[in-house]
């Protein structure tokens, strides 16, 4: 009975000062909305990246060229050692327990079919590409090792690219021009589905050797060596990923003639390395968001405390009267705590609503995927309650300890 009375009293006094109450909870609303929305976006981005890493193919190891070599003691200029076709061939010859090795050299090019032209990333690679990156063929065929050897001008299109270039025609067998070089479309890939930042289906694949001879030009050649962006290696099973990593290190160090004390001039990353990197990024992000949340909630809480102190001094006479008719200290304390908690809870609920709204708008606009989790809502809810409790304590304590007689005489 007293509790419902208290809640009623709280609501009444909040309603009596609508504008003031609204302004008071604004801090909490903004803080909670920021937490909910940013956490949703953070979660969404994380799960996007995770699924992208995973959909890139299981047991995947990716090799990239490393940093610039430090200047040598003799004053030789720093050198950059790219991955080369030779590296790929050495790995091809030396690695065991692999399901496939895909060398990758990608460049942006303009693809033209009849009157339509389309700008897309063109990747020179090997016949292992499908297996390594978990693509499947939809139509036609993929190029083979002999297509590479005989420098066939053939191309396989991703689902998106095929749809853009051939809205009405059957792509397989058509002749297209890539940067003015004639290619024949021999196959189309099945769609993998977009997973956020880039579309894995918007690609053109050609035999690597054809690319070097006809398309990539001088950019792909450095110091007389044909270079690669990446070499992707798919392990035969998850258990051998680590041993393959060791083998790659061994082969490439020998290949690059690194002395025993020199650092690697390439990087080998397994999927679990990438997920690990991601999780450190996520942790940093979460800490950062937590700090923002803490600050805005702190500001909101101070606002509530401030207004409640004003309210206590405005209602000194009421407090005196309540004491005169028998209210104990704890009655008054609880009454004001319920008021501050009602305020902060209201702010929290509005904030959650606003935050979810923002997250969904962002998703709906296709900017970035967001994922509102129950735990983030629960967190925001609990936090706003705790803020009300914490910042209500001092004003409520002040009210509870007013001297009954002095309070009645006031004003």
């Amino acid at each position, binding site marked *: 009975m007293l509790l419902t009375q208290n809640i009623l009293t709280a609501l009444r006094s909040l309603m009596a000062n609508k504008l003031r109450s609204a302004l008071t909870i604004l801090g909490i609303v903004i803080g909670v909305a920021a937490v909910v929305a940013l956490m949703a976006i953070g979660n969404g981005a994380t799960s996007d990246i995770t699924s992208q890493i995973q959909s890139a193919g299981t047991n995947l190891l990716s090799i990239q060229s490393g940093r610039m070599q430090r200047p040598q003691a003799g004053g030789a200029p720093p050198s950059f050692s790219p991955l080369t076709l030779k590296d790929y061939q050495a790995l091809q010859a030396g690695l065991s327990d692999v399901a496939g090795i895909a060398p990758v050299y990608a460049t942006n090019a303009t693809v033209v079919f009849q009157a339509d032209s389309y700008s897309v990333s063109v990747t020179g690679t090997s016949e292992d590409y499908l297996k390594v990156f978990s693509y499947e063929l939809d139509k036609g065929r993929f190029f083979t090792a002999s297509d590479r050897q005989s420098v066939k001008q053939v191309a396989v299109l991703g689902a998106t690219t095929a749809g853009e270039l051939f809205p009405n025609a059957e792509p397989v067998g058509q002749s297209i021009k890539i940067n003015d070089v004639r290619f024949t479309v021999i196959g189309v890939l099945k769609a993998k589905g977009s997973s956020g930042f880039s579309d894995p289906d918007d690609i053109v694949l050609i035999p690597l050797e054809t690319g070097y001879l006809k398309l990539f030009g001088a950019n792909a050649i450095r110091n007389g060596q044909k270079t690669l962006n990446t070499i992707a290696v798919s392990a035969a099973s998850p258990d051998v990923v680590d041993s393959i990593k060791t083998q790659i290190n061994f082969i490439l160090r020998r290949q690059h003639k690194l002395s025993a004390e020199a650092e690697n001039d390439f990087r080998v990353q397994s999927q679990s390395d990438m997920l690990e990197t991601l999780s450190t990024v996520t942790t940093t992000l979460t800490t950062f968001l937590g700090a923002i949340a803490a600050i805005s909630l702190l500001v909101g809480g101070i606002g509530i405390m401030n207004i409640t102190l004003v309210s206590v001094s405005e209602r000194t006479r009421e407090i005196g009267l*309540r004491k*005169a008719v*028998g*209210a104990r200290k704890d009655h008054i304390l609880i009454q004001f705590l319920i008021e501050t908690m009602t305020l902060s809870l209201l702010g929290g609920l509005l904030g959650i609503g606003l935050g979810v709204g923002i997250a969904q708008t962002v998703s709906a606009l296709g900017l970035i995927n967001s994922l509102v989790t129950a735990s983030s809502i629960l967190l925001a809810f609990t936090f706003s309650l705790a803020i009300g409790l914490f910042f209500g304590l001092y004003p409520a304590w002040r009210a509870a300890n007013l001297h009954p007689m002095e309070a009645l005489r006031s004003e």
Partner: protein
Amino acid sequence: MALIELRSLTKVFQMGENAVHALAGVSLDIEKGEMLAIMGPSGSGKSTLMSIIGCLDVPTSGSYLLDGQAVEKLKDSQLAQVRNRKIGFVFQQFNLLSRTSALENVLLPLGYAGLGARASREKALKALEMVGLSQRVKHHPAELSGGQQQRVAIARALVNEPAILIADEPTGALDSKTGEEVMGLFQRLHREFGQTVIIVTHDPFVARHTHRIVRLADGRIVADMPNPNPIPAGTPRPELEI
């Protein structure tokens, strides 16, 4: 043993350098069922005395036995309980909660007494009926006349059936006709229920509605006289009063 026994009460307020002796040794007995008036000039200590009798404040020195209980020994929470159960206050400015209805105002002490909702409602309605406001239960203070507001305040003071009703200038904010109505109500409570009533006033005409008149000056009792023939409520005020 009297209901209220005050012995050599003093109350000193420290105002920076100066000490204000609001009460300078008051001894007074009030029996159960008495109706008396406390009179005296402004600043003579009437309100201070009432706040001590009503357990809103504690004396600087002296002793106060309420119903045989030494009040100065009570803890804060026990004082709150005494105020809730044994004391009913009526103020000059009514002190009603403006955002709540007459009924809710009267319910307030019962909430702090921990009484259930249904029993509370019954008691509160009965108290409002006793002061003749059964038709105004849902009204807010702003929708009531001054006299009606004071009657709501009296119902609130009565609702817990207190041993003592303390009224500090209850007619001070009312015109003389409404003031008479309020005095009539006090007289009826005293006559019909044996209610102990203490009324603070500096209006001699109001004081003469009671059976005993105590005069204070400078924090001391300067006169304490019975009034064997109290004026019945409703008597027109004489043209000239001293």
